[in-house]
């Protein structure tokens, strides 16, 4: 029982990371109808930025700010270089371009930094606290806390602020939004910046738990995508629930079934959902009208 609780805690912690990246996926998908396959690389690049800054001797909080600012910049470059020129084409060229961007980002980092995984220490000096039978790692607590905060922030931002409503309007009907005086290209730019920062945040938070490596981006992206399908594609709540569920499943799978195939469980769950419930837990939004 103690082990089960411990695994549940770890699973939710890692699941929260998937949820954050999945959220980034969903936001871009809703705004542009495009799945950004480089979303995971945002996490990887941010983690490396963080490692570089900390190694330069900068304080942790300053490194954090710089890394997130770097992600915002990357979001701008990504939008202008990858999405924007292709915005009038069908989804396939855009998907392929984001895959190209993903390869470019991960291998540029590899070329600059080499293949050795890096270590980033956690935010807190205290490693964790013992709560009854369960040991609560401080970094996992931080991840869960930040995720809860971001989910609430997201809700407030999209439902209560004017900018959030403009973003929603853009994602629902671009032509109508532009007729109402909303600058669609600005809104899409904001979406890319926001999801790059979200992805970066997830990468920085998870870095002390995993190693900082070139592969971390694609691994996280794969899980996050599986999470969005499990939750229901395009649904914000679905992304979060799916991410948490996947983290828990994977942690238990690794503990009770097999460690080397840990990364395979997400795929099996994904296939099971695709076959038996492709619309996910919360259901996908309706497709094209004739």
């Amino acid at each position, binding site marked *: 029982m103690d082990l089960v609780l411990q695994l549940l805690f770890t699973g939710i912690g890692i699941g929260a990371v998937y949820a954050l990246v999945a959220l980034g996926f969903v936001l871009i*998908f809703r705004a542009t109808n*495009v*799945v950004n*396959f480089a979303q995971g690389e945002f996490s990887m690049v941010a983690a490396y930025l963080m490692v570089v800054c900390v190694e330069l001797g900068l304080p942790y909080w300053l490194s954090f700010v710089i890394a997130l600012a770097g992600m915002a910049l990357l979001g701008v470059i990504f939008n202008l*270089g*990858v999405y924007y*020129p*292709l915005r009038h*084409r069908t*989804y*396939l*060229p855009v*998907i*392929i*371009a984001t*895959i*190209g*961007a*993903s*390869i*470019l*980002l*991960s*291998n*540029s*980092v*590899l*070329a600059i930094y*080499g*293949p050795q995984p890096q270590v980033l220490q956690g935010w807190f000096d205290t490693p964790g606290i013992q709560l009854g039978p369960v040991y609560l790692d401080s970094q996992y607590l931080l991840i869960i806390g930040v995720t809860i905060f971001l989910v609430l922030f997201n809700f407030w931002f999209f439902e209560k602020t004017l900018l959030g409503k403009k973003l929603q309007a853009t994602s629902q009907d671009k032509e109508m939004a532009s007729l109402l005086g909303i600058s669609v290209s600005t809104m899409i730019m904001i979406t890319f910046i926001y999801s790059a920062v979200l992805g970066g945040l997830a990468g920085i938070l998870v870095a002390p738990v995993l190693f900082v490596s*070139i592969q971390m981006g*694609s691994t996280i992206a*794969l899980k996050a*995508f*599986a999470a969005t*399908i499990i939750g229901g*594609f395009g649904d914000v709540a679905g992304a979060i629930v799916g991410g948490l569920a996947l983290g828990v499943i994977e942690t238990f799978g690794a503990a009770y079934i097999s460690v*080397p*195939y840990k*990364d*395979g469980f*997400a*795929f099996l769950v*994904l*296939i099971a959902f*695709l*076959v038996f419930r*492709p619309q996910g837990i919360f259901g996908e939004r309706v*497709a*094209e009208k*004739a």
Partner: protein
Amino acid sequence: MSASDNMIPAPAVRSKPLIIRHLPYFIGAAVLVALAAGMQFDGYILNILLQATTFSIAVFGLSVVLGLCGQINLAQAAFFGFGAYAVGLGTADLHLNFWLCLVGACAITLVAGAFLGMSTLRLGGHYLAMVTISFQQIVTLVMINAVGVTHGPDGVANIRRPELFQSSQSYLAFCVAMLAIVGYLVWHLPDTKLGRAMRAVRDNELAAGVNGIDVFRTKVYAFAVCAVLGGLAGGLFAGGFAYVSPDQFSFAESIQFLTMSLLGGVASPIGSVIGTGLLILIPEWLRFLKSVPGLYLAIYGLSVILIIRFMPDGIWGFVSDAFTRWRAHTKAPPVAGALQLRPATTGGDIVLEVTGLSKHFGGLKAVDGVDIAVKRGGVHALIGPNGSGKTTTLNVLSGLYKATSGKIVLDGTDITNMAPHQRTAAGLGRTFQNIRLFRSMTALENVEIGAERPGNTMIGKGDDALTERAMEALTFVGLGSRANELISSFSYGHQRLIEIARALASNPTLLLLDEPAAGLNSTEKLELHELLKRIAAQGLTILIIDHDMTLVSEAAQHITVLNFGRRIADGESMAVLRHPDVVSAYLGSE
């Protein structure tokens, strides 16, 4: 007396037998095979040629799935690896016959590809991209970790070749011959029924469905063909190099295959060979790049972005596009005879009987218990103010939406629960309010897809009969002389006519026209009216939706009026248009 006996002109379309037209290809291929077998290469060159040949076959697979059918596969290296390990483990560990292993490689990849495709292809393209990436990762995981079976990271050594091709030189010649055969099949595929279906699916899935194409099955076929070509290529590769290891079949290799395909031109096997050749040769010239890990793939990633942006059709696409444009203006389309419409008459006096049809979207009752009875022969109009449920009704009739309740009987067949392509096979033809043509094809090819509907009794066997039927339909709407032009060069009004021709070529029992007059100028509307008369004169029943009251009142003998999803009037045209409920629905009431 069969339908073709009373056609007036002699068959206008006649082409030479395929084998003679394609003879130059086979002669060229034979010369290449002879060269591969006869010339003395040193080991280095031989390896490069062997790699280029086998990789090209794998990239052919991508040109089918991505180029023809518009579906993505980011796991081609995994299928390639399946083939390589099937031949590797089969010949080295199990001491099986090479040919048996090669067939096994194709069979395994066929099953894997079909399974992966069937689990994902009903869903949007982004699912397929992510699922194939996942599959690729799993395959790599298994290759590395299942040491007992795959030898793990050590790989498989001592892979054998067939007795017949023991020397590297003769094995290369064999691979070149395979390349030529597979290349021929892939090259010819777009002009077959399956190939046309794939292109239609790529251009417009909805339109493909209502023209009688089973969209899902077509996609699964394309995906399975791609996987099998990957497996075949992998098997040949393993035999050629005698040693395989997991890193040769990683995600990076899948990306390399994709880049090869995109660079050369995704739509054609010639592009595949160009792209593969370049991406194998260029790295050999730029070996110094490999000294920095990652730099090499980073350049691949960047090239993918740049190709997609600046040269979406690849090198060969760029060349052949210029050629096609030139040819379209020089090659005159064949002259065709008069179009014969012979709507099937198996049912009774009522062609389409709709009873209690409802379609609810959540709480919204878009269509609510509507009855429609369309009499055989003549024009029946479905009208109503905006938001009255007309287009929803049409979409439920053609199967794009599933009815919440009610029954639809077409010519005696209950089609309520059929998929769109099955309804088309049962005799339903339709056009769309917002035109849905296959944009990368010529007018003629668009109409050919319509003519190919399963159950069309008006075409004979073979490609010539198909072209003839399509030409007749295009000539019927007045566009026969422009048959070989691409859709993009037609005006809006003419695109409408091509859509109608596409539906007519299929010889439907009932033709559904969704606002055919929308966006047409007054001259075009008059022409449309004339066209409807000519169609009706051949006994084809039409169900038309339109806002244009002049057109509706002049063309239709019978009108059904909807408002707020319910039927508010039904009957003979003039009486219905004077009906007080109809007047108030359109003009409002006190």
